[in-house]
């Protein structure tokens, strides 16, 4: 937050308050991602419950950010960079809220998965994926605070790595399910968790795009790299990969 101060210091305090709420939200969401992934790996039902309960606080903060943003628009009629601050916090709050929901969904599935036979390697792989997306989120929020366009671009580019991880996990789960149909229920849940994390990456990317919009005044134009091929690549369909592996 490097803009020089307004003549009206109350205006500065209003804008800082909204941005502080966003950072608080970001902290809660980062923690939720890590806790959800940890509870899955350590089969910790209490920790999963904590994540499920914690989502309310995130939702409440989002409402607070939107209320504060609406108030600033009504009372201050922000322009230029101030307007972009207000617009971007609203979008970022929505993205964070979605990531919070996806973490909560992970924790819900963890509650079910704990009752089942474990799929070897899967929780650890998912936790690595979750840690990756959490790092991306942390960098996106740092980029926001420091108004760092380069770091935001870096975050956007890293989403492709996350998609690669998702592709690999997708194939792995298919293999497990083909090997033994009794794995299907657990693998379906695990797959949804992987998909949740992959979606989080998209939301983080969107946050990074807001940083670029905030700093430059223009949304990034270039197509961002997409590496999630599971929805259209027949090579990832069952039976198609015998020759490969």
């Amino acid at each position, binding site marked *: 937050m490097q803009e020089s101060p*307004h*003549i*009206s210091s109350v205006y500065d305090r209003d804008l800082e308050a909204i941005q502080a709420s966003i950072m608080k939200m970001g902290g809660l969401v980062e923690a939720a991602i890590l806790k959800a992934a940890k509870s899955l790996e350590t089969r910790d039902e209490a920790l999963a419950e904590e994540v499920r309960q914690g989502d309310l606080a995130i939702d409440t903060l989002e409402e607070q950010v939107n209320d504060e943003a609406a108030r600033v628009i009504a009372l201050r009629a922000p*322009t*230029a*960079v*101030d*307007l*972009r601050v207000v617009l971007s916090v609203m979008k970022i709050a929505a993205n964070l809220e979605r990531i919070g929901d996806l973490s909560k969904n992970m924790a819900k599935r963890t509650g079910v998965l704990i009752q089942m036979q474990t799929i070897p390697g899967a929780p650890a792989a998912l936790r690595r994926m979750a840690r990756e997306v959490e790092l991306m989120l942390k960098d996106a929020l740092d980029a926001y605070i420091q108004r760092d366009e380069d770091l935001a671009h870096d975050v956007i580019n890293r989403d492709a790595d996350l998609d690669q991880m998702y592709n690999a996990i997708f194939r792995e789960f298919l293999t497990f399910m083909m090997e033994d149909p009794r794995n299907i229920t657990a693998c379906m849940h695990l797959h949804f968790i992987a998909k949740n994390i992959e979606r989080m990456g998209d939301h983080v990317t969107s946050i990074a795009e807001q940083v670029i919009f905030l700093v430059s005044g*223009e949304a990034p134009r270039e197509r961002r790299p997409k590496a999630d091929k599971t929805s259209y690549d027949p090579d990832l369909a069952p039976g198609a990969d015998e020759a490969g592996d």
Partner: protein
Amino acid sequence: MYDTSKTADGATEQMATKFHCADVQVFYGATHAIKDVNVDIQDKTVTAFIGPSGCGKSTFLRCLNRMNDTIDVARVEGTILLDGEDVYDARVDPVQLRAKVGMVFQKPNPFPKSIYENVAYGPKIHGMARTKGDLDELVERALRRAALWDEVKDRLDATGTGLSGGQQQRLCIARAVATEPEVLLMDEPASALDPIATSQIEELIDELRQNYAVVIVTHSMQQAARVSQKTAFFHLGNLVEYDDTSKIFTNPEDPRTESYITGRIG
């Protein structure tokens, strides 16, 4: 260079240049009040001049119809062309020029005469009406154009100074448009008015744009944002930035413009 204007719906309109200003300098005695201003003001467009007090926006506005001639110590240099004709050419009669380039001031200043006389005065001295019927028609047209007709049509003989502030200002606008000008200069036309009267003036400005080039000096940035298609930001006698209003208020190029419109420098 600045020959396109974005309308509200985002379409790009091509408008003819009304005023071409190149290397304009204004001195008040030893004070260099306007420095190297280059700007093309478009026809059928509202152009807003914004900037802190003393930045030169009113001074520059007054160059456009030679109002600075009335100030002894003021000296204007550079080129100002109205439809290609030099405004400062020795053969140009300032009175004729001001009939073409009308002006409305901050404080409503109707003549201490009847409403009718206020509007009829200009057309009369410029010999624009041959008969009383012609003049009546002209007065009615001007008052309608200034959105005042319905309020005053039954009391055209009443004195102009007896109207409310907002009505007086619209009367001054009617007076300015009565001489069929091509350009309307407005120096803070709504700053002495309440919000309702301000809205009426702003609505009027938007309608006037159909027929005239309108140049408005305003301290209210929200007003500039609401009424204009082009905005020029002046600072310390320099024209810092001139662009589409939507660009100036969302993503200005110059950090000084950004600081001013977001309330960081006065």
